[in-house]
């Protein structure tokens, strides 16, 4: 061991020291941050690279791009540029669709009379489509969605044949979506709230529902490598490396530009996680939500009524449950979009919310009502999972059994400024645009991205390139969406929500690193 290091370690080990300087001053042991710690004096984001001049467009950026050089390339400015990248992605993904499911270049986001539109990402494959019972191969990209067989059988029993047929038609054409997940612990009982923290119940007493979708490059990687089944994952025998988005580059690796922007070459893998709430009649008329007709399925499951999560069977009420299939109108309330690219191989983690979701802890309680917070019941503990039993078949009437959620880490001043900027642009397309009611919470990105050359054996395989630093220093350290990480917000390492911190642990069904996505854990074994 070299001398300085040995000297330092010895000093640390022995904690050796003599005397004490006269200048020492007594300071409280308390290290609590001051109360205004989160109010930061961040710059606004008006100088975001490509920000003010960036057009609203339907092309999903293939990768992150910043024009900044030298000292300008600091954490704050790059955060602005990543936030712009997230907004551009959000707009392109929510662009109106053409008949083939892609973006319709003849239209603009939110350009319809009611300010809403069917979106590109809603035509992508859901995890229910991809990970079939018994490891069955999913249907081809672009084929009509199907209801799960178990739901079809129950639906026939629950509805008249004609009504069922209409439901199926709506599902097949994409006009109606299928939703079921509310909490973890069961094939369908899946909240997308991490660590089994509980369901999200809105102020109408309705359970939020969740879905995960993936784009075509990600879907094809899974299908081509037989990763949709547990058997296929076991047989794969290689590292899982989803395709990276990338720009066209010259032989020196410099991105080729057109109209001041890099030219997209391949979009790479993208995953979306969406949170929806059942809309009341007045919410439907508010024009503040992206809306979808939905078929919401709650199967019979006595675990729901368990009062003790540790012993669900023993503590379940001995009642016979009936499954419930409801046709409702849902509103989008939360939206994660995660994109893998050459310059961001640890993926770019952006999260958006509907603006009426929750107030901010310690901030001004400025709205008359929120989707997931009650001003009338401000005596309730916040960010605590609703008490069991959970029964999503019917609305919760007891207001104290609903979710009371606040945002723990405020949206930064810079991101707020950028949100205002994009909202103005969306209003310029259509003053009634529902998309102006969605805000970026933040973007988490690696400050030390594991960038590789296209010829490298470890191309786009971040943990292989940086085994000691696979996450690459996420910024911000913590990030959560009030609808999807409702109960784990905060700033405690390993406990509070961090996109990359959590997804760095994701594996396949046979416990191999799955490239920052948990979706592969859903694969089932084929029937022998």
């Amino acid at each position, binding site marked *: *061991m*070299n001398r*300085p*290091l040995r*000297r*330092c*370690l010895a*000093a*640390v080990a022995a*904690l*050796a*020291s*003599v*005397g*004490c*300087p*006269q*200048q*020492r*001053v007594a300071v409280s*042991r308390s*290290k609590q*941050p001051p109360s205004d*710690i*989160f109010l*930061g*004096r*961040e710059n606004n984001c008006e100088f975001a690279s490509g920000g003010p001049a960036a057009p609203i467009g339907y092309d999903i950026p293939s990768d992150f791009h910043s024009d900044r050089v030298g*000292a300008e*390339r*600091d*954490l*704050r400015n790059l955060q602005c540029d990543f936030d712009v990248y997230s907004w551009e992605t959000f707009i392109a993904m929510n662009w109106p669709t053409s008949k083939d499911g892609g973006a319709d270049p003849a239209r603009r986001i939110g350009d319809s009379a009611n300010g809403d539109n069917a979106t590109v990402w809603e035509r992508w494959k859901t995890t229910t489509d991809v990970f079939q019972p018994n490891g069955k191969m999913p249907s081809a990209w672009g084929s009509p969605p199907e209801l799960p067989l178990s739901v079809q059988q129950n639906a026939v029993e629950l509805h008249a044949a004609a009504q069922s047929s209409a439901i199926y038609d709506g599902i097949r054409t994409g006009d109606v979506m299928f939703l079921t997940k509310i909490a973890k612990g069961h094939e369908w009982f899946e909240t997308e709230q991490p660590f089994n923290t509980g369901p999200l119940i809105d102020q109408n007493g309705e359970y939020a529902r969740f879905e995960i979708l993936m784009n075509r490059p990600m879907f094809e990687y899974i299908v081509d490598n037989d990763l949709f089944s547990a058997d296929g994952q076991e047989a794969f025998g290689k590292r899982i490396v989803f395709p990276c988005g990338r720009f066209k580059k010259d032989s020196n690796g410099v991105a080729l530009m057109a109209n001041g922007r890099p030219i997209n070459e391949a979009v790479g893998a993208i995953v979306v996680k969406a949170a929806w709430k059942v809309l009341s009649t007045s919410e439907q008329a508010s024009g503040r939500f992206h809306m979808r007709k939905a078929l919401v399925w709650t199967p019979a499951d006595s675990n729901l009524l368990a009062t003790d999560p540790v012993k669900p069977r023993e503590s379940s009420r001995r009642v016979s449950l009936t499954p419930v299939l409801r046709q409702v109108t849902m509103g989008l309330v939360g939206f994660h979009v995660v994109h893998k690219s050459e310059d961001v191989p640890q993926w770019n983690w952006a999260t958006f919310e509907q603006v009426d979701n929750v107030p901010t802890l310690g901030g001004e309680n400025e709205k008359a009502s929120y989707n997931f917070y009650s001003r009338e019941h401000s005596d309730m503990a916040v960010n605590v999972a609703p008490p069991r039993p959970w029964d999503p078949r019917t609305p919760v009437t007891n207001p104290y059994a609903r979710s009371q959620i606040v945002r723990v*880490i405020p949206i*930064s001043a810079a991101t707020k400024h950028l949100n205002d900027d994009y909202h103005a642009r969306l209003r310029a397309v259509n003053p009634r645009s529902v998309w102006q009611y969605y805000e970026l919470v933040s973007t988490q990105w690696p*400050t*030390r991205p594991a960038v590789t050359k296209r010829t490298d054996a470890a191309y786009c395989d971040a*943990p292989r390139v*940086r*085994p*000691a*630093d*696979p*996450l690459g*220093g*996420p*910024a*911000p*350290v913590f990030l959560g969406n009030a609808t999807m990480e409702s109960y784990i917000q905060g*700033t*405690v*390492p*390993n406990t509070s929500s961090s996109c990359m*911190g959590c997804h*760095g*642990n*994701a*594996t396949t069904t046979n*416990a191999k*690193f799955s490239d920052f996505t948990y979706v592969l854990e859903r694969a089932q074994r084929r029937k022998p």
Partner: protein
Amino acid sequence: MIESENETFLVLSSALCGVSVDSFVAATPPKFPVPGDLNPHNTPIDRNSEFIRTLREQVGTSAVTSLLERFGHERQTAASDTVAQNLLRDPEQGPICRSIMKMWFLGVWFACDRPYDAHHVISAQAYKDALVWKVMQSHPMGYSEWTFGYWADDPPPLETFLTVIDK
């Protein structure tokens, strides 16, 4: 170009700890300098600013300025390592230097007059970014960023964690 107090503190820390400035990358990534007014509890880095702030709180601004000025002045005519050794022998500034080393290696403040008693953990981020874990080619108890199953493999080589100054 005039070196700022933060930069001088980083160079002094490097000389005291025996690792290159780049080894503090998790604390101060040179590629992405961090403005000092960002939320320290949600910024991935900048232990450097956090530690110099802690030092000023604990020993006083004038003591810090005096230490950094002496280091900067003597470094004009002697190697940083030699200056660091001189400082460690100094009855006034030596204890401060040892506390600086302990901050970097352990993420913990040890008062100069009670060098055997940990006074407080500077922050959760400081604890998990402490150099001791890197020297061990490991990670803090209760916190790992490594991918699932890492324990079945040899740890990555020391040079992937930090660069030791080889004299």
